């Protein structure tokens, strides 16, 4: 292990390694805290996604029911014709906000629901069931945009979580054990050198005494 780090068994190196180990352990503890916080945020977002998805699916189901009614009462061709006459541009502002250093999207949009006069189709040839279907689909659109934002946030958090986990693991299973191994090696080597010196001194002392 010591060879992997290419350390020389000196006291200076020992002090340097102790500092590095201290920093690595501090980094590991903090990154683990960050990981815990990210997991918490992820579960919270996951809960929100489930809620948003349920709402969006319910709304879509209501909207499609309204559309089926519209097809039945107004006629398929007339409904398709009215839909072709409708024009829409939805202004969505996508900015980013930061959560623990992760850039996550923040979606803002204006009023999605319009009244029958502003939708673009003629009122004299259409029925109120078309207005209802359009209203329901506009509501669904709002919910789908919200769901998209929440899912994008979840993906961003998940990516950061993966990165943080990799770093925590690298510190926990590679760097810290390596540093500990190198420290142990230097301490053992220094102890050994001390014992060698001690023995050498004893031997020299014995030789000197022999010569007296």
């Amino acid at each position, binding site marked *: 292990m010591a060879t992997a780090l290419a350390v020389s068994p000196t006291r200076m190196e020992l002090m340097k390694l102790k500092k*590095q180990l201290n*920093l*690595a352990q*501090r*980094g590991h*503890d*903090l*990154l*683990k*805290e*960050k990981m*815990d*916080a990210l997991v*918490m*945020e992820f*579960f*919270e977002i996951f809960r929100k996604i489930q809620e948003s998805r349920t709402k969006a699916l319910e709304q879509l189901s209501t909207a499609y029911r309204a559309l089926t009614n519209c097809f039945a009462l107004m006629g398929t061709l007339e409904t398709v014709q009215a839909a072709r006459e409708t024009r829409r541009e939805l202004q969505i502002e996508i900015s*980013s*906000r*930061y*959560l*623990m*250093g992760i*850039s996550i999207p*923040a979606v803002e949009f204006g009023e999605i629901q319009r009244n029958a006069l502003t939708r673009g189709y003629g009122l004299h040839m259409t029925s109120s069931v078309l207005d209802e279907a359009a209203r329901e689909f506009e509501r669904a659109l709002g919910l789908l945009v919200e769901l998209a934002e929440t899912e994008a946030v979840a993906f961003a958090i998940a990516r950061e979580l993966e990165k943080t986990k990799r*770093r925590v693991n690298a*510190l926990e299973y590679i*760097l810290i054990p390596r540093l500990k191994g190198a420290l142990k090696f230097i301490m053992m080597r220094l102890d050994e050198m001390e014992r060698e010196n001690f023995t050498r001194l004893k031997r020299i002392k014995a030789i000197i005494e022999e010569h007296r």
Partner: protein
Amino acid sequence: MNADRLIKFELARLNAHLPERRISLKEALSLTKPQVPTRDGSVHSFKRKELEILAKLLPEADWEKLQLPIFIALEPKLGRGAAKVSGEVEAKVAAKLLGKEAARELLIYRPEVALLRRNLPTTTQYLFVW
């Protein structure tokens, strides 16, 4: 060793999302777009709904004292999962939300942190202390 530089970089990045300066609840309520610039050059916005929740929880005299965002300090020495909310008014408002006894410094645990973040996602922020 490169690992050292990497760890230092990671540690420096941990608190990059924090604001350059905090603003009081009173100031935030008076702004049309309540937000603060952050250290990494971005902007952190507060949701008005949350500001109103905080305003309801505190008497008007404390609006000036409450500094936003409220920091949830994560400190390894507190133990894994424990966090601290510092500041008298900040701790008071967190204690009220969590149904705990108010103190100058409030020590909270993971489920409480989650609850606090759920209720105040933009007016609270994590702070990593080492």
